[in-house]
């Protein structure tokens, strides 16, 4: 008789896959509870959400676009896609990472308090990062910065040493390049 080698039971380690990060665009009917439905799926099935952005994008059709950044093995990502697709209010799910070239942007509001050299340095760094000052007093700045998540991470990292006291981030919005629509 064939003896199984592995000691695991229900978890199938037959193919060991690496964890990858994927950006999914989900077009949904903007009906009550639709976001709860999508998020509930992720918690119920143990999927990760690294970033989530949602708002109505087509007002006349009441269609919202949810952008989810998630991590998992390619098999899990495939499952997530299928699980989303079978929900009644979901029109379409697109894996932007896999489909080809796409752009991701995030906006952050970063509040930095301080005086003296640190304050001057914060303003200087903000210029380098092309962040705008949208509120200021003699004790603080609020910067608005847009860009890839990695750029925002870097900016926040720098500001940590320069008196960072608060951050608010939108989460990632993403769209494919070229003249084709989703």
């Amino acid at each position, binding site marked *: *008789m*064939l003896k*199984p*080698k*592995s*000691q*695991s*039971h*229900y*978890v*199938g*380690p*037959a*193919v060991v896959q690496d964890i990858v990060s994927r950006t999914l665009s989900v077009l949904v009917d903007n009906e*009550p*509870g639709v976001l*709860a*439905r999508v998020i*509930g799926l992720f918690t*119920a099935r143990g999927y990760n959400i690294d970033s989530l952005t949602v708002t109505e994008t087509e007002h006349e059709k009441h269609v919202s676009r949810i952008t989810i950044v998630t991590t998992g093995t390619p*098999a899990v990502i*495939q*499952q997530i896609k*299928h*699980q989303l*697709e*079978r*929900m*009644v*209010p979901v*029109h379409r799910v697109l894996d932007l990472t896999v489909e080809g070239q796409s752009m991701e942007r995030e906006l952050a509001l970063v509040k930095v308090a301080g005086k003296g050299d640190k304050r001057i340095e914060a303003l200087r760094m903000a210029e380098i990062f092309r962040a705008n000052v949208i509120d200021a007093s003699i004790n603080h700045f609020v910067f608005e910065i847009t860009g890839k998540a990695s750029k925002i991470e870097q900016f926040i990292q720098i500001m940590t040493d320069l008196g960072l006291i608060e951050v608010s981030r939108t989460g990632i919005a993403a769209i494919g390049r070229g003249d084709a629509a989703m």
Partner: protein
Amino acid sequence: MGSQQMNGAEIVLKALVDQGVSDIFGYPGGAVLPLYDAMFNQNSIRHILVRQEGGAVHAAEGYARSTGKVGVVVVTSGPGATNAVTGLTDAMMDSIPLVCITGQVPTHLIGNDAFQECDTTGITRPCTKHNYLVKDVNDLARVVHEAFYVARSGRPGPVLIDLPKDVAMAMGTYIEPKHVKPKHYSPQVKGDSVKIEQAVKMIAAAKRPLIYAGGGVINSGPQASKLLRQFTKLTGFPCTLTLMGLGAYPANDKQFIGMVGMHGTYEANLAMHDCDVMVCIGARFDDRITGRIDAFSPGSKKIHIDIDPSSINKNVHVDVPIVGDIAYVLEEMLRVWKAKAPTLDKGAHKAWWKQIETWRKKKSLSYKKSDTVIMPQYAIERLYELTKDRDCYISTEVGQHQMWAAQFYHFDDPNHWLTSGGLGTMGYGLPAAIGAQLAHPKSLVIDIAGDASILMNIQEASTAVQFDVPVKVFILNNQHMGMVRQWQQLLHGNRLSHSYTESLPDFVKLAEAYGWVGMKCEKPDELDDAITEMINTDAPVFFDCRVAALANCFPMIPSGKAHNEMLLGDDVSDEEVGGAISEEGKVLV
């Protein structure tokens, strides 16, 4: 006339009639009173008053499963809705089409913790295929029509409509189904032709093929079962079925090798383990089927036909996935097969069948016979023999009796086997039998039950009397929660913690108290006469069948083991049973 003015409750009833609904199962309450008022003056729809909302949902499930129609439930807000949750989850797991209408407090009170208020759509979101909270009476007709469409299309499932009382009383416009634009929700029914050709090629080249079919065949409709038979006959392959699939292929056919899975036959599980091409049709590689997943059918190429893309590659990686409705895909496969007329490796198939026959000779379903005490397996065998010539519907509760029923009652037709497979809901059987009997008044409907399970929805006995439903409840009474006890013996050193029912009711007296006929049988040689008497009684009958108390359900793949590590009933001592599961296996369910 495409549209008419009426109140919300009337809109709902009109929509139900236009959807072809003739029976609904329900229980009234404050928030749903307008709907009940609308029911008062009409004769198009029969309302079956249950005794607890959970019973309504299971009855609708039995009705739906035995007819292929959408089951309809009406319950009130708050506790009415929460009592329905188990049934909805059950229907979700077993893909049973239901529409459940729940009353809700008036819209201005929603969120105020009003009397009998609960967040019904929030609570039921994960256990329904879709749900709606209707806040505008003019959306109501569309929502009801859409709910039926969603419930029955693609992979079927329960859909819930939460209806606030003020919406049910407001005047609005009724729209007929034909004027409702279908939602964008449109599951793929036709399979990919390239994949189908690939599958046919793979099947034709198989040396040790196996057809593994499940509940999806039954959900697809009677045509799918017919096509499965044709396909199996045409290829000459062995066929096994899951618990939910029983009846999709005739159990008495020699190409049927028994049920697969934890309590499936030795030959089915070994064939599953050793096959080289597995054709999975409408089944989902559930953990009760696969056992230990990394040792599951290690040498086979797998073809998976399923209407739900999320079922594919969920538990087991497959080589050829085909998304589509079983009937469409099988028809196409048969067409391609006939056109190609492939030459099969007859020699290999002969050797494979010879191997299967060797496994079959193990007679894995055998058990120790007794002259003094009724063995539970024997009871089902006799029940089958004495009822097989009738149009008979069998429902079950959950536990040992359910597995024995699946093993020893042989189903030749789809839609005749009603059981809670996915969720495993004790208390399912009696209301499900009532639902099936209402749909098939002339047929014989039997709930094969256990002494513990039957008490979980015993109140529905009263429903059966009110609606003249002559269902039979055949209790395999071993005075234990048999499956719990068996697992305690397997896993926990036979420490029978709370699995013995200390004070069971006298089922005969209980039956009589409800207005049923009560019967009791304790001796094997009296069993046949007693069963015949039960069948011939034109009234609901409780049959208290006293069976061996400590019988175990075999064969069994212990949790955490592979198909080829099955325990067979004949050759296991109690000690071996006690040590059958490793420490790691004990954490599994």
